[in-house]
């Protein structure tokens, strides 16, 4: 049926009219992009200034930021929960090791293949989510993580290289050996991470992301609005799994090796806990979480007495965050950015500049 309704009011609704002041033209999206660009510049400059060891730490933080971003997509954007994201990460790394080790594949071929395979695995894991939610789904995905620990990574010798894990020769990138050049290793990982994040953010801004939000807010109403709920949910699980696998691919690139103990169910639970503390709803939470996940143990190295208390500290942090900042540290940062934006744009203008197609979060 073609619709015959036409807009009757004059085009200049109050929201569209310009406010005449220069500052009012600053939009939230522009501020977000500015902040993101500044962070990227700092991230790039770090590779020219840091010593090899701190740079390796930062590289790993970046890897875990990608892993945590997979939780942001699944939990933050789609409202689903998974306690096997570290298993997907490990599967990605192990598949690359196996493809390179058994068949002599190049890393640059093995990595995309592994990510694609884990996408399919993620879709399969998404199937129970079509019927389950919340705690039940958490338990099902946790048992899948245990299955991965005790079967996939423990008994499948093709995959785990007779329980030794894999050590790879890092490839070269445009003629630069990533084996010997730590700065370029970091930069390559930064580029891959940024491209992946931009791709997902494009999805989020498009009909895919709007459908995800709609499902998260009111799933039945989304279905009655024509949103293909089943397909979009499976897609979300697939994308989250492949982001985790990408983190695994970057991990094996950064470390040069993979072992199963880094990707057991405890790691999955830690990832989710840190994602919740750092903020599951947005990218800054993932970045902060990645830094925390890697840097926190480094700090603990200096205080050996605290090591047995790691879980306790994490748990206390979780409780503190639940009470003081339910949206996580990322949520606090967003609130701070909103205040900054209001100040820059001027009190009343800030409200008027809200983009009609805002999506409930900052753009980044």
């Amino acid at each position, binding site marked *: *049926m073609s619709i015959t309704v*036409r*807009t009757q009011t004059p085009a200049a609704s109050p929201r569209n009219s310009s406010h005449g002041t220069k500052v009012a033209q600053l939009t939230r999206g522009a501020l977000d992009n500015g902040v993101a660009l500044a962070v990227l510049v700092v991230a790039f400059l770090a590779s020219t200034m840091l010593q090899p060891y701190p740079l390796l730490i930062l590289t790993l933080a970046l890897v875990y930021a990608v892993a945590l971003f997979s939780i942001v997509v699944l939990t933050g954007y789609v409202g689903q929960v998974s306690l096997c994201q570290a298993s997907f990460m490990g599967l990605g790394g192990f598949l690359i090791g196996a493809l390179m080790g058994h068949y002599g594949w190049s890393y640059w071929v093995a990595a995309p293949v592994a990510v694609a395979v884990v996408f399919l695995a993620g879709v399969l894991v998404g199937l129970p989510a079509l019927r389950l939610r919340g705690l039940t789904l958490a338990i099902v995905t946790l048992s899948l993580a245990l299955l991965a620990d005790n079967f996939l990574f423990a008994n499948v010798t093709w995959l785990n290289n007779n329980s030794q894990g894999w050590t790879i020769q890092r490839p070269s990138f445009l003629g630069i050996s990533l084996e010997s050049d730590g700065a370029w290793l970091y930069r390559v990982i930064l580029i891959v991470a940024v491209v992946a994040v931009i791709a997902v953010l494009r999805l989020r801004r498009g009909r895919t992301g709007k459908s995800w939000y709609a499902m998260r807010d009111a799933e039945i*109403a989304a*279905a009655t609005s*024509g*949103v293909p709920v089943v397909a979009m949910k499976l897609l979300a699980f697939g994308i989250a799994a492949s982001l985790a696998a990408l983190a695994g691919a970057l991990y094996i690139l950064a470390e040069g090796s993979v072992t199963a103990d880094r990707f057991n169910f405890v790691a999955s639970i830690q990832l989710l806990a840190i994602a919740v503390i750092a903020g599951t709803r947005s990218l800054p939470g993932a970045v902060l979480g990645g830094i925390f996940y890697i840097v926190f143990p480094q700090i603990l190295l200096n205080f050996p007495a605290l090591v047995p208390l790691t879980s306790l500290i994490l748990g206390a942090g979780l409780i503190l965050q639940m009470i003081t900042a339910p949206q996580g540290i990322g949520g606090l940062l967003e609130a701070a950015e909103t205040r900054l934006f209001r100040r820059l744009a001027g009190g009343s203008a800030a409200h008027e500049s809200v983009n*009609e197609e805002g999506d409930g979060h900052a753009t980044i």
Partner: protein
Amino acid sequence: MPLSEVRNVTVHFGGVVALADVSMDLLEGELVALIGPNGAGKTTLFNVMSGIQRPTAGSIMYDRRAINDLDTTARARLGIGRTFQTPQAFSTLTVLDNLLLPAWLPRFGGVIADLVPLPGAGRAKRAARDRARGIATFLGIEDTLGRYPTELSLGQRRLIELGRALATSPRLLLLDEPASGLDAGETERFAELLLRVRDVFRLTVLLVEHDMQLVLAVADYLYVLNFGKLLAKGKPNEVVNNPDVIAAYLGGEDERAATAASVRLPPGVVAAPGPTQGEGWVL
């Protein structure tokens, strides 16, 4: 030829019979109202029609085909739109996005198109956006487009939900108590709006509503459900004078309070004297 038919639909929840052998015809262009006390099975019937609840027996016909095996999304795409008793607007999407999404869905490679800007991709979105704005203007909620549903009043949220349902390009629109929570003036304006919506969008409407003033003002035809059974059907004025309906609504002494609260009639259509409860009139 009816646009949609409910054929002998029965729904059991365990031992409870929510609907028993209910049949209805919805003629093209008609505004049909479904009334009955709370718990009569009205929302269950809506859920069966929109594919949320599987019927224990019976079938739903739509556009000359049985649609029992189609899921909610598929039925929405065939043109069955609906609203909910408690508004279910997408709370983290702006009002514009709420109205945009049904006309700009991720299908036919829409996911790929989100990733890679293809030529002409902007056109579909612009068309959907213009349509969303047109619907918002028609419903008088164009001022709210940039806001979030949580910031708006119940009445506005009900209109957003109606707008979202209209954005799916429905032929059959199911409205579940669209006027509950509205005051008398809002309800009156809603009645006028509903008739205009039906005419402009050329819809067939099935309306569940407790407010009899609204029902009698807009309905072409009336079905009465009671305890999951179809009690009466017919032109509104026939139905409100139907002795069965009056008896059922009056019932025993105990049930008077409940029915009085759930069915309110305006003065003038009272067919039988009864004790008034609160502001309402009892049939």
